[in-house]
């Protein structure tokens, strides 16, 4: 039975279970729902869960396990288990898929398939006829392996269907048997909901762990081929796909930090002042118009900001500042990217800070006014200190955005890895280099490609440290203030 049909029948059985469980509960109570422990819906839901949860659980586990087990047993039958093992296995899989398609389309029967022989080109011809192209003539071992692969898969699928449907039906009868007036269906259903909520939370956490580990393995791979000290302390970045590359992270880190700092120098004061104006001084009407307008900035795709940097800000800075002052000739520069990125970050700082400043209780302001403080004294000495933990959080959020930004840097600051103090020179960041090392025709075993993972992991570590610092700051101040 195809997968979609299994899904459909499980869902249908669940729906039927819900309706029957509900009806049965009402019937057991003699038509008077007040005699039941829980509302009739809960009895229905209990049956629904008993049908779906175990069967879907087994189904997914089966779908994960079956290919692994079959591949293992088929691979054991292959004579030469060598470094090309994975290549041979992928041939086997492709051939098995092809044969399956051919049978499904009626081009050959199951017996035909089992009777196939190699060496006369019939397989290629037969499969080409149903739209499956094979690169070369099939070797006998591969054909045997593919036939066994196909057979085992089919047996597995049948078994899967039987097991899953049996489980669902068993769950149905079990839950129906439970349904009586004393059964605490509500508590059972709520416990199931709790488990689902926990599962959702753990998926988010496990994914993060998974990402870190996948990066970690590739990074370890990279450091097997490249000196760890050279990566962290070399000041030269010159990858060379013919080998002999110098992959020092320092110029990239310098570019990242330089651009981020300029961006924050632009975004934090402007964003904070905007927030103070909007939350403390602006009339309600002005605020209602201005706040969404500022937030529009956050909705502009960064590639558009990048274009703005490339065609407007970059040439402007070059023609009116860099060239007349003799600071450089480059159209793309750290300054360009920093300024434009700063503008992009303004709404992050202002919108969050505005909400935080608004959350400061009015009684604090009244207290300050009541002592004869002016509005600006109140804001500086009472409102901002009270809002500080949140503002720090907003700034650090903006900082992580700045560090992770790519498009504005590519178009605004260029792609030249360089360590320089002159803000009108082209430089580049870690993220840009991750992209450029992974795009194009690359060899995933070469250090020039693997370095991208090391760069990514370093970036992740930096933002992690930033977040931890933010947490610590917020916590100390909170102890101090609230």
């Amino acid at each position, binding site marked *: 039975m195809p997968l979609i049909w299994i899904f459909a029948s499980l869902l249908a059985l669940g729906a039927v279970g819900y309706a029957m469980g509900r009806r049965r509960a009402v019937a057991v109570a003699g038509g008077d729902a007040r005699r039941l422990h829980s509302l009739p819906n809960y009895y229905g839901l209990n049956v629904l869960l008993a049908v779906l949860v175990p069967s879907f659980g087994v189904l997914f586990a089966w779908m994960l396990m079956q290919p692994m087990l079959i591949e293992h047993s088929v691979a054991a039958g292959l004579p030469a288990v060598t470094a090309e093992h994975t290549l041979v296995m992928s041939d086997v899989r492709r051939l098995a898929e092809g044969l399956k398609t051919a049978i499904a389309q009626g081009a050959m029967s199951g017996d035909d398939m089992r009777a196939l022989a190699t060496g006369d080109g019939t397989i290629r011809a037969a499969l080409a006829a149903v739209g499956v192209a094979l690169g070369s003539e099939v070797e006998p071992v591969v054909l045997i392996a593919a036939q066994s692969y196909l057979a085992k898969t089919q047996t597995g699928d049948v078994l899967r269907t039987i097991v899953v449907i049996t489980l669902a039906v068993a769950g149905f009868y079990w839950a129906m048997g439970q349904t009586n007036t004393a059964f605490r269906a509500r508590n059972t259903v709520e416990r199931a909901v709790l488990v689902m909520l926990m599962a959702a939370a753990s998926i988010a956490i496990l994914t993060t762990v998974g990402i870190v580990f996948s990066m970690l393995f590739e990074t370890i791979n990279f450091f097997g081929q490249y000196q760890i000290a050279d990566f962290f302390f070399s000041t030269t970045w010159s990858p060379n796909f013919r080998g002999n590359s110098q992959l020092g992270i320092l110029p990239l880190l310098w570019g990242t930090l330089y651009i981020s700092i300029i961006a924050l120098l632009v975004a934090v004061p402007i964003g904070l002042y905007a927030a103070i104006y909007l939350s403390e001084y602006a*009339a309600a009407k002005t605020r209602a118009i201005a706040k969404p307008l500022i937030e529009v900035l956050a909705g502009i795709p960064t590639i558009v900001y990048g274009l703005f940097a490339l065609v407007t800000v970059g040439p402007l800075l070059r023609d009116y500042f860099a060239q007349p002052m003799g600071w450089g000739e480059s159209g793309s520069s750290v300054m360009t990217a920093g300024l434009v990125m700063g503008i992009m970050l303004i709404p992050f700082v202002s919108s969050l800070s505005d909400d935080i400043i608004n959350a400061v*209780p009015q*009684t*604090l*302001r*009244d*207290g*300050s*006014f*009541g*002592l*004869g*403080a*002016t509005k600006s*004294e109140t804001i500086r*000495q*009472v409102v901002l*200190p*009270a809002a500080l933990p949140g503002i720090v959080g907003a700034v650090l959020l903006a900082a992580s955005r700045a560090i992770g930004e790519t498009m504005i840097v590519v178009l605004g600051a260029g792609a030249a890895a360089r360590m320089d103090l002159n803000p009108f020179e082209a430089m580049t960041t870690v993220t840009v280099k991750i992209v450029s090392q992974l795009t194009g025709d690359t060899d995933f075993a070469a250090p020039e490609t693997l370095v991208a993972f090391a760069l990514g992991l370093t970036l992740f570590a930096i933002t992690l440290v930033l977040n931890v610092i933010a947490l610590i700051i917020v916590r100390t101040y909170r102890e*101090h*203030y*609230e």
Partner: protein
Amino acid sequence: MKDHLSVECEAILQPKIAARDVQVHYGETHAIKDVSVDIADNTVTAFIGPSGCGKSTFLRCINRMNDTIGICRVRGDIKLDGEDIYDKAVDPVQLRAKVGMVFQKPNPFPKSIYDNVAYGPKIHGLARNKTELDEIVENALRRAALWDEAKDRLNQPGTGLSGGQQQRLCIARAVATAPEVLLMDEPCSALDPIATAQVEELIDELRQNYCVVIVTHSMQQAARVSQRTAFFHLGNLVEFGDTGQVFTNPQDKRTESYITGRIG
């Protein structure tokens, strides 16, 4: 009614605060109607009345806190020491330094106890150096009967104090700016009975140096701490006189009903 007025004139030879025909509008709502009242120095004057009667609104007219509310308009005449506080020449910020305020809910700033009290003096430049500031802070805390409890923890956050201590900190904060008038807007409504007793005792002591005006929901409290009582009802000042007289021999039917618990 004539007798009553003459008694009043005797009691207040030179009123600290003199309000005449004060009207307050919140947008469309007419919150205060024709209120005229004379408040004497070195006295505790209590404003009582049911919720929404305008007593807090009137209190907030005296230090122009109503200015911070956009839709609020105040008309009429309020004189502090014979000077019109709604005159254009008067800076409301300066006025509020002279007329301190304590709020319903204790609202210490998110700063240390010391900085809370030093806030006003620092803003108004009352201290020439650190020693003087220390003195002002100590005096204010002593006046608010908080010094003994707070002297060893001046650098700890004011928000870490108990509710009653927080309210006394707010009183100390108001006292530190050397005001002439202290306005208290239901200062004990968020406190337990013991803290309330401490604050009430404090209010009685503060009378020596300040003109105190207190808004309260509790008639017992008004009877305990005040010398003069004003009864507000639906935005009108119904009755104003010596506390003892208002509570034992009210002139107006509405006052009597309120005090005996029939309205409010």
